[in-house]
């Protein structure tokens, strides 16, 4: 795979993101290769969600560079290759059926004023099938359980032709059993060829499937590589990766 397509799906160089004048992400240089299943981890306020939003151009960056599929973010237009699954809590849909929500996943492939065609409908049905919610297509989105809403949002991302799936905390607010079934689904999608970047608070049910982990702390990358043995180590004091931070200019407030 590396021989045919050596260009990473996601690449950042010295990324700097400031919100309200405060640097939230500093010197973030990461890569996500084709076909990888990568976790983006860190504690609360470490900048995980901000990084994902910066990758997608939802939050502007003040320095450095973001590339998607080898194209600089500002010039990237091939959005059909990206399937974004936002945090469930951030989506508040008042009046829509499950099928209507999933159908918006076809938008990157549709033109204005052109009605839905048979291929669109087939892909929507396939996407609902893949997340196991075919029998719910006519139900109101707002009446589903948290885990089911999460599946609908994944189906929406699948309804396009995404090669890269970006999931922001898919396990937030769903119980362990649902987490396990979502992890299985994410693993299957990755096995069938999709590159996956998933924001996680802890590895949890996805641990055995993760090829690569990027750990953020206070807006900086503190670990890249195989999953760390326990996530707790990134929140508790005795950890080797904390040394540079302790010695660095920002110090440690805890």
């Amino acid at each position, binding site marked *: 795979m590396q021989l045919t397509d050596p260009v990473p799906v996601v690449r950042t160089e010295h990324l700097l993101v400031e919100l309200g004048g405060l640097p939230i992400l500093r010197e973030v240089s990461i890569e996500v290769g084709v076909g990888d299943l990568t976790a983006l981890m860190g504690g609360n306020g470490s900048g995980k969600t901000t990084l994902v*939003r910066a990758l*997608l*151009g*939802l939050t502007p960056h003040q320095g450095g560079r973001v590339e998607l599929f080898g194209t600089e973010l500002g010039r990237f*237009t091939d*959005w*059909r290759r*990206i*399937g*974004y699954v*936002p945090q469930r809590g*951030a*989506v508040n*849909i*008042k*009046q*829509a*059926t499950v099928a*209507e*929500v999933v*159908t*918006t*996943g*076809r*938008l*990157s492939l*549709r033109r*204005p*004023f052109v009605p*839905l065609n048979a291929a669109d409908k087939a892909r929507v049905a396939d996407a609902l099938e893949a997340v196991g919610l075919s*029998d*719910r297509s*006519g*139900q*109101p989105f707002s009446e589903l359980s948290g885990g089911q809403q999460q599946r609908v949002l994944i189906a*929406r991302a699948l309804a*396009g032709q995404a090669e890269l799936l970006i999931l922001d905390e898919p396990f937030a607010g769903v119980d362990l*059993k*649902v987490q396990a*079934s979502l992890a299985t689904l994410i693993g299957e999608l990755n096995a069938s060829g999709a590159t996956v970047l998933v924001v996680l608070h802890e590895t949890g049910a996805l641990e055995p499937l993760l090829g690569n982990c990027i750990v953020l702390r206070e807006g900086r990358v503190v670990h890249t590589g195989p999953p760390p043995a326990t996530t707790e180590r990134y929140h508790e004091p005795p950890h080797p990766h904390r040394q540079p931070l302790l010695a660095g200019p920002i110090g440690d407030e805890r």
Partner: protein
Amino acid sequence: MDWLALAFMQRALLAALLAGVTSPAIGAYIVQRRLSLLGDGLGHVAIAGVGLALATGTAPLPVAVVVAIGGAIVIELLRQSGKASADVAMAILFYGGLATGVLLAGLVGQGTGMLSNYLFGSLLTISEADLWLIGILAVVILAATVGLMPQLFAICTDEDFAHTAGLRVRAYNLLIVVLAAITVTVSMRTVGLLMVSALMVVPVATANNLLTGFRRAFVLALGLGVVAAIAGVVGSFYLNAPPGSMIVVITIVGFVLSLPLAGALRRSRRPVPVIEVTDPEPLPHEQTGVHADHVHGPDCGHLAVVHGDHIDYVHDGHRHAAHGAHYDEH
């Protein structure tokens, strides 16, 4: 029915039809975005346009269209700036628009009497030129709200996702407020600028109560809007009241009626079974009382829960699973 022969009533009914169909069409998106009061603010801004037209002796409708569109663009740019002061700036814009309109009308001696035709609607003042402009604007609104439904729906439900689907979010957001501004002026003659927002929001809220799904509720809201607008015009002819007040009262009566109806519809809809992840540990056997004259089944009306290899039925806070001749508590 002799009013059907009156030329001014024919014009009023046609204008009401167009207001009734366009207002909920853009209102559906505004409600989904939780911007229900946007139309009210735009109506206030358009009053400045009417005042300006009265003061300069030009036709009010075209001036109001231009002023309302200008106001809409300012409102959206303020909103997109995301500053805390934007909220106050919008309030100043809304009341500034209202005050400017009243002041300009007063300066040329027109007073609030003339202005009230535009604030609460009027059957008598719709000219043929007005009707042509209203017709053209209505076509624009319907073409955009129906033709761009997937795009506008995506923007209104999940702006971030719409961005990652490659939509030009800022441009579409601007389009929504500009369409709302045009709708306000289309409805100005029949519903009036102070009440147009009700015709944009209330039929949509009623339709949302009665139907599931954006598209189905959209179609119903347009129908409800037309019925309310036409009935309001006819009613105001007999009662000699401003049509805007009649139209709004009718839409609200419809909304109130929809509340108990929505509850009944929800109960009559057969609940879709919930599929639950089962615990590998079997539950202790706990037998329930006999169900006198009720057999649980797919059509019994109780919420079904797919529980491993069998189905539980929920009623009165219990989950009952058939076990031979009796039911078990699950």
